[in-house]
């Protein structure tokens, strides 16, 4: 009975071997074949030689002009992005500033109200003294304070005020 034939080596395997893409066991198998089979050795050498020939190709160098030009394009792109996003930023800006302004106005209103109640306002005093001032000439003609008090208790001043009103 014939011994089983070992699997035939493919060019794909040889190339993967050259590229270091085979596992250790497969590498050992190929290396063993290379030791014994001159045809496989020749195939491998041809593939290797062809691969090395690619190094004859020019290697273009990117010059400063290309770098500068690319960076300029990117700068234009960046400016465009800023322009596209600026309306949104503008809206946010105004919303923020309106909120700040509203807060300031509210604080100012509160301050005025508190000030109104806490400070001595001469106008407020005048307003409170208005009934007295209106009748000041009459009061001056009467020297007796007790008499005036008696008139007030009889509500005579208030009648005058309601008549006037």
């Amino acid at each position: 009975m014939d011994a089983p034939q070992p699997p035939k080596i493919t060019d794909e395997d040889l190339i993967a071997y050259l590229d270091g893409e085979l596992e250790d066991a497969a590498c050992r198998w190929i290396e063993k074949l290379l030791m014994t089979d001159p045809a496989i050795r020749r195939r491998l050498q041809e593939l290797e030689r062809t691969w090395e020939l690619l190094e004859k190709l020019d290697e273009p160098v990117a010059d400063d002009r290309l770098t500068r030009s690319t960076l300029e394009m990117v700068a234009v792109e960046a400016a465009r992005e800023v322009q596209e996003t600026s309306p949104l930023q503008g809206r946010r800006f105004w919303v923020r500033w309106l909120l700040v302004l509203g807060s300031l106005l509210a604080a100012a209103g509160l301050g005025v109200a508190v000030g109104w109640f806490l400070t001595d306002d001469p106008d407020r005093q005048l307003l409170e003294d208005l009934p007295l001032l209106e009748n000041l000439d009459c009061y001056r003609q009467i020297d007796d304070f007790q008499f005036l008090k008696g008139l007030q208790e009889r509500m005579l001043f208030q009648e005058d005020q309601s008549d006037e009103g």
Partner: protein
Amino acid sequence: MSPLISKSSARRHAMVDPDVHLMLRVRDGDAEAFTELMRRYQGRVLLVLEHLVGSRDWAEDLTQEVFLRVYRARKTYTADAKFVTWLFTITNHVASNALRTKARRREVRLRGAANSSGSGRPLERFLQCSSGQIPARQLDKTEMRDIVRLAMETLNERQRMAVLLNKFEGMSYADIAQAMEMTPQAVKSLLSRARLNLRQMLIPYLETGRPPEAPPSVGAEELAS
């Protein structure tokens, strides 16, 4: 993401990548970090794109497009992979879109002019011109470079991208898979076909100075898929 690598372990790997930290600074509005990333990667992106699209001016335009996209994507950037993998995912998208657009335009231009003379394959044209003058002699540096460049042009876009990322960026199959949104096994097959195509194109020419008898197709099955 490669099925062999979990998201959490990819994130752990990413966090030790210094360029990921630079990109996170870009995300937070650091312009200096962006300039530094450009300084580190612009030449590498340009190299891949130039060999992918075959024109310096076009490659420069696309390189700018790549970095513009990096800038635009900064706010949504998450450290899920190595920075280079993320960058070349963007590069791959930009290049694919550009080549697709170009192919559509060319299709429109060529409609009605199907019977144009001459071979459509640049390497064949090159070989037709030069093979009679090249006995089995040492090829000079420029000639060799042109032959390798033309051989690369016979690969399809995906093969070329995988080859460039593997050869010039030293990216693993798993990283290429992530950048090109494929499985690592598909990358293995893609690279294998690409390298066999290159071998078939270049080895006979190197050994005899004569063109290969039948240049392989450029992976039509992959273009169709």
